[in-house]
């Protein structure tokens, strides 16, 4: 049964359950996320890799501009999919949360706790009247005291830990490649190439122009860095 099957009056307010126990507005928000341009996150021993498809809306757009990958704190990065403007609000909250953790404990924030906090905010918007859910999934990746961590949060507020995760329209292609080729013992360079290759394949399968953004947090430096466009482009060309 499709999720669009006869919602009737039960999708007018998000706080109203349908008779079979579903919250349609939350499911619609998930649909926004699943139709967004693909993002992915990968963990390896040497660090974290985040990647995103970023389609240019016009040839006149500045191709250096990135809107799906964000630094959250020096040791945490995020990739977003869905409504970009909803995402920015949550990224701002995530940044404030990380700084507040530093003020309170004089320590960088654990990635799991950060994901939980953002999940908590998303959950509020599935229960309060007069609001709509965030149409965003965020992948948080970072290096903390417990190691190299990767989490994904969806519009319902659920968060889960992953070794490799992808969300968005190309997730089936990407997940197929990751399931076959991802290994925990790949080094950072190989993991980066796997990320680029997966996104390239996903774009090719939809006949879209190949434009990929990559950011990484190496375990050695614990510092978020975006990969320069020409470096990504070089790898896109060489990877079959």
């Amino acid at each position, binding site marked *: 049964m499709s999720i669009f099957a006869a919602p009737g009056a039960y999708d007018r307010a998000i706080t109203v359950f349908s008779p079979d126990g579903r919250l349609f507005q939350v499911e619609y928000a998930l649909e926004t996320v699943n139709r967004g341009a693909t993002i992915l996150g990968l963990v390896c021993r040497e660090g974290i890799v985040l990647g995103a498809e970023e389609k240019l809306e016009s040839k006149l757009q500045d191709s250096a501009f990135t809107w799906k990958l964000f630094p959250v704190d020096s040791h945490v990065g995020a990739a977003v999919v869905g409504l970009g403007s909803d995402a920015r609000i949550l990224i701002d909250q995530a940044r404030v949360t990380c700084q507040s953790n530093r*003020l*309170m*404990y*004089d*320590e960088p924030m*654990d990635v*799991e*706790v950060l994901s*939980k906090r953002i999940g908590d905010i998303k959950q509020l918007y599935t229960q309060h009247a007069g609001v709509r859910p965030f149409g965003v999934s965020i992948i948080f990746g970072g290096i903390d*005291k*417990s190691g190299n961590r990767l989490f994904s949060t969806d519009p319902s507020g659920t968060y889960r830990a992953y070794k490799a995760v992808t969300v968005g329209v190309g997730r089936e292609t990407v997940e197929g490649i990751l399931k076959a080729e991802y290994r925990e013992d790949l080094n950072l360079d190989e993991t980066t190439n796997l990320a680029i290759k997966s996104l390239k394949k996903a774009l090719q399968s939809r006949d879209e122009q190949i434009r990929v953004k990559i950011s990484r947090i190496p375990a050695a430096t614990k510092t978020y860095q975006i990969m320069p466009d020409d470096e990504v482009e070089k790898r896109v060309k060489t990877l079959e």
Partner: protein
Amino acid sequence: MVEQHQQNRYYLMPGATTLGMVFSEGVLLVSEKRVTYGYFVTSKAGRKVFTITDHIGAACAGLVADMQVLIREVGAYANLFKLDNGRRISVKAAAKVMSNLLFGRRLFPLITQTIVGGVDEEGPSIWVLDVLGSLLPDKYAAVGTGAEIAVGVLEEGYSDEMGLEKAKALAVRAMKSALSRDSMSGNGADFLIITREGVQEESMKL
């Protein structure tokens, strides 16, 4: 006039000799047991060393009510931290929480000087806090009315490689010096010994 002022100050402010030091396997926190209001010894069984978690403790000087409230509040934050993060709070983070609580009351302060100490992944460490929450890392420290006397003994006898027995002997020596010359300190001492194995409490008559 000046004497009158000082009498009032001492009336409100119990004295103390409180010290802490890092030794090879852990930290040692010590405080004597006398609580005074002016010239009157209110209690001979006061307790100025506290456990915050099973790996962090604190030793305080100042108003007894204020130290008790402060320790309970830091303890609550430490428990919440463990539930949230799934790991124990670090000694530095617990000391920072205490520093924030003290600074937050800058205009109506808790009158306590505190030595926070414990053992975590980074090893043993102590942190010294004043009334307004300044946070200073140290290897050994003394606070309270007997601090000037005790710290001289620590200064002379302290070494990084001391084991527990040597550290305890040094603490006893520093305590005895302070207690024999500071009238607001006395009636024995409480010890808190924190190692990787946990917190051990001891008391001594001196």
